[in-house]
């Protein structure tokens, strides 16, 4: 029986009988101007093999030089994750042969990471906080990118040849490694995704990376093992490589728990190996065997001197750290008066920055939330784009709300204006102006419409005069229609009541 035809155990059943333990390695590409060890530009999607120097190509004679900005970014990350920052640390060579690795070794850090022994609090859907212990964060360089040509779906199998783009070779990375994450039980999938999301938000706040999962700026390797109970020794783990969305992370953990439970139930041993997640099936498949003793022949990189960040510099960086996402959420929760649930929805929708900017531009917090989480979220979903990618700025949303607040337009018109802004017709006030969408509260216009409505609906008028004041709504409908929805409903009501002599 192979690993692929093992019977999966129902997830809840697996959790009832086994205790899952997670371990997560996150790679983040730093957004420095140049690469980790040379002056080549650190850019995404340039023409293949144009963002290179002799050093990025590993040409004979070339030498690395550490990028000081990358070290600073790594320290920022380390501090944000409550790590100790090494007084001195070295790079090491991790040696293996692969065509995308220009020197056939990766310059990384081995036993002397720049940051070590930290933690980060991860907030789950229901507000529960899980503290994840960080083992280390270290600096390294990315490899080039292989493209396999002539085979099926870009895989190496069946390809006639491969092409390598070294633009990514040497891009600075920080790898963050957790300690084993115990006691997550049935929430293991959620914890894994929430942890990576937490890091992603921290990277963005620190401005060390654009941290776009879909671009591979942030990549997660997910380790899962099962044990009989929380007191037992750790079981054998598998490492699913390069899982690149939050949803995929959850599915990976879920699948591995079911699969490993199935293996264990069948009396089989878990093989320590790397695995690959498949978006289409939601399952993982075996990669290559991986043992802890895999021999990369690490040794200290002799071409680089040790990195020894002075304590003064580290403290300067610490003092300059921005407010981190968790603290910011707590602060905004108080300032805005959102419920916990509303706040989590906002965070999960990646709308926090947008709402904060909208409030900063003058809108009330609840109004800003309603726009971004309501109409705009719906439109983004329809168009299958990120909410932040919509063609409207927080300032425009605030301006729109200002028009509503100032009774220049009503909610219904506001939605029309919103659509026009998204269509690139201009700013809200200008659209209202140029298209004549402002609320009509001019009595001379309204009185005519009221008179017409009274004349057209004698039975309604009789009801109102008979004491059924709520029937006024039946007159307002035709009036709004006649004024294309722009009539000031409040004023219309007053005029009707005046005309009919009711109060």
């Amino acid at each position, binding site marked *: 029986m192979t690993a692929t035809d093992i019977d999966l155990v129902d997830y809840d059943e697996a959790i009832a009988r086994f205790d899952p333990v997670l371990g997560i390695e996150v790679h983040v590409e730093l957004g420095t101007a140049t690469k980790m060890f040379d002056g080549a530009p650190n850019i995404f999607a340039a023409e293949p093999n144009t963002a290179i120097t*002799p050093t990025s*190509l*590993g*040409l*004979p*004679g*070339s*030498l*690395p*030089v*550490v990028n000081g900005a990358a070290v600073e970014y790594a320290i920022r990350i380390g501090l944000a994750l409550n790590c100790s920052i090494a007084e001195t640390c070295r790079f090491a*060579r991790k*040696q293996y*042969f*692969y*065509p995308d690795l*220009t*020197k*056939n*070794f990766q310059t990384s850090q081995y036993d002397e990471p720049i940051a070590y022994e930290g933690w980060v609090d991860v907030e789950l859907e229901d507000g529960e906080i899980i503290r994840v212990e960080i083992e280390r964060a270290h600096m390294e360089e990315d490899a080039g990118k292989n493209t396999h040509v002539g085979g099926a779906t870009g895989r190496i199998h069946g390809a006639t040849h*491969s092409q*390598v783009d070294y633009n990514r070779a040497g891009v600075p990375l920080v790898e963050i490694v957790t300690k084993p994450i115990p006691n997550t039980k049935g929430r293991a999938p959620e914890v894994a995704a929430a942890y990576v999301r937490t890091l992603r938000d921290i990277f963005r706040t620190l401005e060390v990376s654009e941290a776009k999962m879909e671009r591979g700026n942030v990549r997660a390797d997910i380790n899962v093992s099962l044990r009989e109970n929380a007191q037992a020794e750790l079981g054998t783990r598998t490492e699913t490589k390069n899982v690149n969305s939050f949803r995929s992370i959850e599915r990976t953990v879920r699948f591995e728990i079911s699969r490993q439970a199935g293996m264990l139930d069948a009396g089989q041993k878990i093989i320590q190996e790397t695995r690959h997640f498949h978006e289409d099936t939601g399952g993982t498949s075996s990669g290559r065997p991986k043992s802890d*003793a895999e*021999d990369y*022949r*690490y*040794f200290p990189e*002799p*071409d*680089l*001197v040790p990195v020894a960040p002075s304590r003064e510099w580290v403290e300067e960086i610490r003092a300059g750290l921005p407010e981190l996402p968790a603290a910011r959420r707590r602060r905004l929760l108080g300032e805005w008066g959102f419920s916990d649930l509303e706040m989590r929805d906002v965070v999960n929708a990646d709308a926090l920055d947008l709402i904060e900017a909208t409030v900063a531009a003058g809108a009330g917090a609840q109004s800003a939330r309603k726009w971004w989480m309501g109409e705009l979220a719906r439109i983004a979903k329809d168009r299958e784009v990120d909410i932040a990618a919509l063609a409207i700025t927080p300032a425009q949303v605030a301006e729109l709300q200002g028009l509503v607040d100032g009774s220049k337009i009503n909610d219904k018109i506001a939605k029309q204006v919103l659509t026009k802004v998204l269509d690139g017709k201009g700013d809200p006030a200008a659209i209202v102006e140029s298209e004549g969408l402002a609320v009509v509260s001019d009595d001379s216009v309204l009185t005519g419409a009221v008179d017409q409505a009274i004349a057209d609906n004698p039975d309604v008028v009789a009801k109102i005069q008979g004491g059924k004041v709520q029937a006024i709504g039946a007159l307002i409908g035709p009036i709004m229609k006649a004024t294309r929805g722009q009539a000031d409903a409040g004023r219309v009501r007053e005029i009707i009541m005046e005309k009919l002599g009711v109060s």
Partner: protein
Amino acid sequence: MTEMIRRSAAAQAAALAAGEASSEELTGAHLDRITAVDGDLNAFLHVNSDEALTVARDVDSRRAAGEKLHPLAGVPIAVKDIVVTEGQPTTAGSKMLEGWIPPYDATLVTKLRTAGLPMLGKTNMDEFAMGSSTESSAYGPTRNPWDRDRIPGGSGGGSAAAVGAYEAPLAIGTDTGGSIRQPGAVTGTVGVKPTYGSVSRYGLIAMASSLDQAGPVTRTVEDSAMLHELIAGHDRHDSTSLTDPVGAFTQAARAKDVTGLRVGVIEELEGEGFAPEVRARFTESLTQLERAGAEIVRVSCPNFTYALGAYYLIMPSEASSNLAKFDGMRFGLRVVPEDHPTAENVMKATRGAGFGDEVKRRILLGTYALSAGYYDAYYGSAQKVRTLVQRDFTTAFEQVDVLASPTAPTVAFRLGEQVDDPTAMYMNDIATIPANLAGVPGISLPSGLAEDGLPAGIQFLAPARADERLYQVGGALEALLEDSWGGPLLAQAPELTGGAHS
């Protein structure tokens, strides 16, 4: 012009400055000499006449226009083929890089070009600088100008032979365990391994990064000093390059004063294993210095005994890693096996065909020494020995200003004599290796003729960043010995003809 090429580089530079000759004439004379004798010596792997003459003519016209030029402007130079040169082939003596034209210049080459030194070509060497005889070159051995059946030392035998045979007044070498100094000793020329970090390594094809250092290969101490001053200095492309200002080497070489200088004789490097006449020339040299006012002191560096062993773990370890990039993927040789040409198989076939035996031997040694389970015993222990060797130097330099030993244990041996005995070959560097392990500078200059009437060398070592002391003691001893010989030692070398060797 045939007389001019026998002068020192400093004298040639003076002749150019005085208008006695043009750089074009001087460069042309050296190219003629190469044509006449190099078929026999094989000191050059590549001669670039056109470019050298173009640079020479440019210098001449700039000089004629009254431009202020570098003191060595117009004096031609040969460059060891391990140094990358844009537009000129660079093979490092290996089939692996046959036909490769680097797209960039080493930092030291940029300095040579900026100063206006015409580059005559690239000199032969042991493959990837691995050897002490230049016999491991994939392009055939270089022969010793003193006896064409003998080795010119290695790995930089090409640079030493070119300078010794008047094919070039100046050359660049690299020294990982003695590759500048030992060829200097066995060819009767001068070679300096600067303090680690004095000269940028950017553009040197790395053998062992923590040991490699480029330096001058010349016929006189003053010439080495001038060339060292030119190529030294901080380079932002090399993290290990020193930020110190470049020392006044030429001034030190010209001082010719050793009064009160304390010279330490390293007890561990003068007895067993050193040929009698090599030792005799060494002792006589010390006597000369003592007469001139130096104080000769005996010092012990007990851990030097383990230096060779440590070196043969650290050097191959780093080399195994540095040479991993030669895989047929991006540059140089690519061998595509007919059967199943996957990337991995192409790498295997390329490395199998492209590397010679000595290179493979060192890659195997280094790969083994770095393997899990062996790392601590081999690489780790070797690093500890390295620290002990450094401490020996520190202790010794508390007692003396410079240390001295014979450069190499013997005079040049015969071609083929040690090819099948790697450990005997490795012993050639017994005296030169400690300096590389500690990063300290060393100079070798001729001490006289020893066994079989062939040249021997004396080596001086100084504390890191005190390279001036080498030029001070070297310049002084050179003058004293040349007085006793009635001229440069090289004047006693047999006249080279274009004829075939025996």
